[in-house]
């Protein structure tokens, strides 16, 4: 067993530098790598390019990095819910590249899988396809999209082991598995590192081969963005 465990978030983020391209897992505030984001704030890195479906809210998630002007460019599918984001975007301080959510997921998965490019129907005939190759297969039109290239992937899982094997919980899974192995170095933070052999080999969502570093995170807030309930 190849041991991927590091003992704290500081070691986990060793080598992350200003100007790097980072993949950050999560959908909204669900399944985001809270510990890694907090450490990126502490490290005061700047000019980051972040590939993440969303950009957090003003005081949580990637919003924490935005507040400190650490992000140069966001590559996302949906970036509402964040006033500071809006201000920086409209003022031109922040570059934003919006791409369809399924294309975002597939560009991650392609990077993970050694597929340099693929065709998707999403965005054909829209400004998303401007400047991109398009092509007919059968009687439908498609757009050529390329795999992402990133320096680090930060993902959050529910449980993991020292071998880097991961399982995710509920919809906190989202982009996290697709970002594993999609950057040069993948750092996984988990709520719990379990003893080796405790995870059923049949039920591992992401095998450790895609992970370079794993650590047990702490103080997870797991904030709920839209608390919706029904009446008893």
């Amino acid at each position, binding site marked *: 067993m190849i041991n991927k465990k590091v003992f704290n978030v500081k070691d986990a983020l060793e080598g992350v530098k200003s100007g790097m391209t980072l993949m950050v897992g999560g959908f909204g505030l669900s399944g985001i790598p809270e510990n890694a984001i907090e450490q990126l704030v502490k490290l005061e890195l700047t000019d980051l390019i972040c590939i993440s479906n969303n950009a957090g809210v003003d005081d949580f998630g990637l919003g924490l990095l935005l507040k400190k002007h650490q992000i140069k460019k966001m590559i996302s599918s949906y970036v509402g819910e964040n006033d500071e984001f809006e201000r920086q975007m409209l003022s031109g301080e922040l570059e934003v590249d919006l791409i369809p959510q399924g*294309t975002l997921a597939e560009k991650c998965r392609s990077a993970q899988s050694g597929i340099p490019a693929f065709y998707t129907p*999403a965005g054909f*005939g829209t400004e998303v396809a401007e400047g991109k190759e398009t092509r007919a297969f059968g009687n439908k039109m498609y757009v050529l999209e390329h795999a992402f290239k990133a320096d680090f992937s930060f993902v959050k899982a529910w449980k993991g082991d020292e071998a880097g094997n991961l399982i995710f*919980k509920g919809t906190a*899974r989202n982009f996290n598995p697709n970002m594993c192995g999609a950057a040069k170095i993948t750092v996984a933070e988990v709520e719990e590192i379990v003893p080796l052999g405790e995870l059923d080999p049949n039920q591992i969502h992401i095998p450790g081969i895609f992970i370079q570093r794993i650590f047990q995170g702490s103080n997870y807030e797991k904030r709920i963005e839209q608390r919706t*309930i029904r009446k008893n």
Partner: protein
Amino acid sequence: MLDKIGIAKRIAKEVKDGYYVNLGIGIPTLVANFVRDDIEVEFQSENGVLGMGPFPFEGEEDADIINAGKQTITTLPGASFFDSALSFSMIRGQHVDLTILGAMEVSENGDIANWKIPGFMVKGMGGAMDLVASAENIIVAMMHTNKKGKSKLLKRCSLPLTGVGCINKIVTNLAVIEITDGGFKLLERAPGISVEEIVSSTDGRLIIDGDIPEMIID
């Protein structure tokens, strides 16, 4: 004239037994409340869940179980969770039978614009472009006119497109309309709405073929 609930109720009648359905944010979300309970339907949310149930009771919310609108949800027996790539495999691979979403504009050839108003803050398309580019059966839920009273059913969309030639049906506060090769085809009138009112609220080519029945909504 229908209110949002009325639109949701009318669209619910389009949901058939055995359908996998993806609901957009806004009016489409309401549709789930009005689907007949003698048919089997499963709701997919593109953030990675199939088999969504109702909102949780207070105290049972789980930050790790949400829908694409970031709302806390529950799941029903037979539900499954999956990653974003597999979620869009379902969508792009045309395994979802019906997509219901809102729009700012729809054109008579089935183009849709619902993600961007130039000059205003752009929040992004989320999964909408994947959904409209892939789904074979898309229903738009929207008001017939915008807040300024201008028709949202146009000859050509004026806003940046979300997808081209992809919409099958539109349900508004005034009418049910099908997109045909010849343009918007009026199928039903909302209760109390005349054909003339629909004509005057529609900018694109509207085909009126024979008597147009009034919608039946329970």
